């Protein structure tokens, strides 16, 4: 079931929560709403659910106009950040709740309800916990119960509000993969909210980046990362190193640092991703960026290296492969030279992107 929002706005008192926005979610799509807190992503999700009422605009689920349809009749499943399980009911009763709350003539028999709830618990691999109470489960298990509960009525649309926000990193990873799998298997349309860019990029078919009640960009994770629409999106999607200096005769200078660039004369700010920095023993023909290592942290497949220099206002971060790390014998206090493989620039006025790949 596709979702179409047209010209939706929302104000809370004098504060604008959502500026007029349009959004279409395709049938069967898994869409991530990404943004910092206060960007309006949760408000948008709650408006789609019907838990908040938009001030203007319209919402359609497929052909059905649900703008003025009450939450209970929208046929949505909603998963809350803190699970919101019914604390006085067993896990099985939680999952069965939606079925038992149906009007009598639509309600399946008691046995049928029990059987369906058990099947849902099997799906989330919690059949052994049917008689427990929510407080006796771990956070990850509670969130799975909450998901089974939301799916019990076979909703057209599944909405998740920071579903993994309260869980620890490892559980989060597992649940993410598991949700993606479930989504592909059951083929419903899902929208989820997150403030974690990694989560959004890993899980979504498309990501909506929001800030200050506006949609900044809607794209696939890959396009989003490679072609950010503006500086906000670029900075929000990953760590950023800044280099600001004066350009003359195709060379940018900043203190003792020099970099060959293809830019008109004047003051410019370049943005560089940590993985786009190459470290070496000596300056190259196009780059003379002397730095000193101030901290080293091996994280997973790569090593995060913090770099400082007298020409840098704030330290840079570079990610290096373990092979390079060993080859260069990187340690604290080591002096090195940075060679950017690529950099990005957003003109201040129109915020249009400009990239330059350096081919060394």
């Amino acid at each position, binding site marked *: 079931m596709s979702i179409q929002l047209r010209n939706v706005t929302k104000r809370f008192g004098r504060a604008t929560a959502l500026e007029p926005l349009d959004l279409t979610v395709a049938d069967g799509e898994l869409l991530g709403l990404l943004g910092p807190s206060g960007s309006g992503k949760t408000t948008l999700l709650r408006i789609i659910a019907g838990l908040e009422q938009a001030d203007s605009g319209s919402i359609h689920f497929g052909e059905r106009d649900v703008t003025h349809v009450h939450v*209970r009749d929208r046929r949505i499943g909603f998963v809350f950040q*803190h699970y*919101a399980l019914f604390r006085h009911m067993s896990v099985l009763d939680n999952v069965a*709740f*939606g079925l038992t*709350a149906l009007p009598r003539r639509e309600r399946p028999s008691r046995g049928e309800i029990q059987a369906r709830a058990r099947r849902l618990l099997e799906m989330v691999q919690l059949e052994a916990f049917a008689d427990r109470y929510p407080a006796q489960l771990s956070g990850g298990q509670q969130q799975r119960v909450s998901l089974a509960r*939301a799916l019990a009525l076979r909703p057209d649309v599944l909405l998740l509000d920071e579903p993994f926000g309260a869980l620890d990193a490892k559980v989060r990873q597992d649940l993410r993969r598991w949700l993606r799998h479930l989504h592909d298997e059951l083929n419903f349309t899902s929208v989820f909210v997150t403030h974690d860019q990694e989560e959004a990029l890993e899980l979504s078919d498309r990501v909506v980046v929001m800030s200050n009640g506006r949609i900044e960009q809607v794209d696939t994770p890959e396009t989003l990362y490679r072609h950010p629409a503006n500086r906000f999106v670029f900075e929000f999607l990953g760590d950023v190193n800044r280099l600001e200096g004066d350009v003359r005769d195709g060379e940018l200078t900043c203190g003792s640092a020099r970099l060959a660039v293809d830019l008109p004369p004047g003051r410019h700010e370049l943005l560089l991703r940590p993985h786009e920095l190459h470290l070496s023993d000596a300056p190259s023909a196009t780059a003379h960026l002397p730095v000193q290592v101030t901290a080293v942290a091996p994280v997973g497949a790569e090593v995060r290296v913090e770099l400082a220099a007298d020409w840098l206002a704030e330290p840079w971060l570079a990610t290096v492969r373990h092979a390079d790390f060993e080859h260069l014998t990187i340690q604290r206090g080591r002096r090195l030279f940075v060679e950017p493989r690529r950099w990005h620039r957003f003109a201040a006025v129109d915020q249009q992107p400009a990239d330059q790949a350096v081919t060394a």
Partner: protein
Amino acid sequence: MRRIGDRTGVRRTLIAVAVLLAALFLLLPLAAIFAQAFAEGVDTFAANLSDPDTLAAIRLTLFITVMTIPINLVFGVFLAWLVTRFDFPGRRLLQTLIDIPFAVSPVVAGLVYLLLYGRNGWIGGWLDAHDIQLMFAWPGILLVTLFVTCPFVARELIPLMQAQGAREEEAAVTLGASGWTIFRRVTLPNIRWALLYGVILTNARAVGEFGAVSVVSGAIRGETNTLPLHVELLYQDYNTVGAFTAASLLALIALLTLAAKAALEWRATRRERLS
């Protein structure tokens, strides 16, 4: 490390003072009530209890209590629901207004009701013209008792419902539950212990209320005399033993209330430890 002031001498002195004060001001009077009630033996006690006026007072007090509890139960739940689940102009003011019966002396409350609903009062004049008598009759006693006890249930529920938040109710509504279903199956089970606690407090106060009731009841023996008023009447009749017999009944109800309250609190702490 030791806590501040945690020295054996200090601790023993404080405990001794506390026990002494409790015995002097709480236990001794309670014991005295029962001692006086049985001062002339069990037979006199029984005779005093079966006095028609005393029986009438017991009946009236129980009747008023039984009427007050359900009315204030519904009112308290409604008020707490309104204040914690909706945002509207004047919400804070309403929350403050709930406490008026706590802040006002019951005698003043009784007087205000007398002025409003008495035969010469604003509303009472109209009621009198239609042959309805509230003051110096049981409806007046019920009215002031409702007034005095109306904050108890709401006061218990509001902090709890605020802490629990509306998430579970929102979850229920996304699952298609109707308002009544949500209340019956989600809200009520979550507040039932606080609700019972509020009822116990309401009960204690409704049984024991003296000030407001004494202003509006007229204390007609056998008709508008509640148990607390009866105690005073008997005492003024120099029937000390009779007065204490009635008082012992009130004390007994108080003790039962305390036991119920303690049982609930014990249950609550046990539940907390479990989860």
